[in-house]
């Protein structure tokens, strides 16, 4: 992290692996993506892995991070970041591969990749931003949309008898991944904890133990049409009420 005060002016705290030239970032005000990626940036800084890392971002609002880091980055297709990073890691195991995606990318169109990467225990890190909707395409129902929640394609609220219950990704990954996996669910409402999870996820990959997967409860005030107070309430109460925050696998992994 840079010095907070430069020339007597308070500077925004930015991880040093963030690319200064492309700031401010492109996310909406109040968006959780920026918080998750800041936490990721801090973890990368602390682990000093910037030079061996490849960051892959999906299609969805995660694509807005294609030039966010001063790190080798590839923006892929919707749902395909997991296989791209898998392919890289399999071809060059020295790479620290991070796949960053939304809940649509990870749990809908790319769910077969997530599931099978977990089964194979790919030595990569997958970070998934759960914002209960498809942000980039204008707020449709996502696999994670809460029961009764209004979206553009569930204008009267998500009817679970028609569309099922929200996907619990970490629970699924934890159920199928072999020994050595690290799985957690964090939230932007607790960045210190989230950073711990992300750091452990990266360390799990560095140690070559297996897959590491962290779902991050996030916010999308633009499509939720919420003000700051409502946004935090939704993340902290509604989302956390349904999606249990904590570590599901590999919690014995020590913070380094």
């Amino acid at each position, binding site marked *: 992290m840079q010095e907070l005060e430069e020339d007597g002016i308070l500077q925004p705290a930015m991880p040093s692996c963030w690319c200064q030239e492309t700031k401010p970032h492109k996310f909406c005000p109040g968006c959780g993506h920026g918080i998750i990626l800041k936490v990721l940036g801090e973890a990368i800084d602390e682990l000093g892995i910037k030079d*061996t890392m490849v960051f892959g971002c999906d299609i969805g609002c995660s694509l807005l991070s294609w*030039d966010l880091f*001063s790190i080798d*980055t590839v923006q*892929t297709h919707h749902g395909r970041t997991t296989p791209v990073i898998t392919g*890289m890691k399999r071809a*060059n195991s020295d790479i620290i591969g991070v796949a960053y995606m939304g809940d649509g990318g990870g749990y809908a169109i790319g769910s077969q990749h997530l599931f*099978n990467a977990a089964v194979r225990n790919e030595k990569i890190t997958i970070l998934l931003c759960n914002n209960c909707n498809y942000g980039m395409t204008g707020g449709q129902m996502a696999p994670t949309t809460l029961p009764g929640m209004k979206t553009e394609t569930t204008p009267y609220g998500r009817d679970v008898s028609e569309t099922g219950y929200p996907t619990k990704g970490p629970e699924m990954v934890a159920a199928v991944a072999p020994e050595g996996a690290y799985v957690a669910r964090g939230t932007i409402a607790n960045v210190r904890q989230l950073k711990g999870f992300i750091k452990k996820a990266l360390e799990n990959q560095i140690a070559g133990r297996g897959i590491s997967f962290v779902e991050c409860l996030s916010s999308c005030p633009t499509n939720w049409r919420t003000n700051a107070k409502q946004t935090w309430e939704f993340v902290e109460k509604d989302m956390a009420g349904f999606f249990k925050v904590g570590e599901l696998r590999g919690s014995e992994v020590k913070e380094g």
Partner: protein
Amino acid sequence: MAEVLLQGEQRVFMTGNEVVAWAAVAAKADIMYGYPITPQNEIMHYWTRLAPKHGKRFLQVEDEISAGFTTVGGVMTGRKAFTATAGPGNVLMQESANMAEMMRVPIVYVVQQRGGPSTATVIYAQQETTLTCFGGNGEGHRLVYSTATHQELFDYTIKAFNMAWTYRFPTFVLGDGYQAKMRESLTMYNPEEKGIQLVKPVPLLGDTTKPERQFKHLRNTYNTEDELYKVVMNNQRDWDNMAEKVVEWDEKGCEDAEVILLTHGIVARSAITAYQQLRAEGKKVGFFRPITLRPFPGKELKEAIKNAKKLLVAESAYGQFLKMVQNNIFGSQIEIVPLLRPGVGITTEEIVAEYHKLS
């Protein structure tokens, strides 16, 4: 340590799928990603047997979407990576081929065509011609070699890696189920002993041997029409410049021919025999066959047919190759006689019989 492979020339008798696996080893491919589908399976079977002996890798993934994208990932790290598929698998792989076109990823695909549409047959067809040349929401910025013999499967698989890594366009070796499963003899060789230089791959990103490198941001998404236009036109220019250097075809006896037999891939084998038989009978017949379907040898074809009266176009699809021909000879008044047999082989006798109907 990897074994030293293929010294001198070796005369062998094997299936086309086995040939492709050997050719990939000879081309120093590093890793294959794949998903089972007939008639391509044995490429993986032989690769998984050869690979560990030569310090190479294999990953079986969950579907062809993944096979395509893991291969893209492997290529990006600067490894010679490839995959192989057929039919419905080829359909799924087009998504990755599109990303490779846009981002200039030198990926190699081997396609052993089977019948279509849908699951159809696992045996043979030339019905993936359009898909392989133009599949996707782009302009078909790719290189496609349509092979006819096992020797060509060997030669062009090696060449596919070289051309992909030279020009940075996705490159396809387009075979078919007959070539895949049939046994025939060919000469295998170490390309470097023959003076064929193997183009060295370089990482597009993630070069862990150079920690001091300047980071790269690779993307395929753009904000404005103008931004995209520039990128696509730049690729188009590169593709056009490449086209004249890589275009390949074979022709015989076209100068004085009245009828020219026009085919591609394995059907060209029936056509060449028909050509030889008819010539032996003193018939004024010619033979023309594009080896690259993308780029298509349009100029060369136009030149070859300029004195002829009729063009007999034969393919194991209902007009996919024919459309490419028509498109490329636009303006020519020559009469085209099509012999279209989707998903079915075409014999020399059938071509000769069709020829005799013409006069």
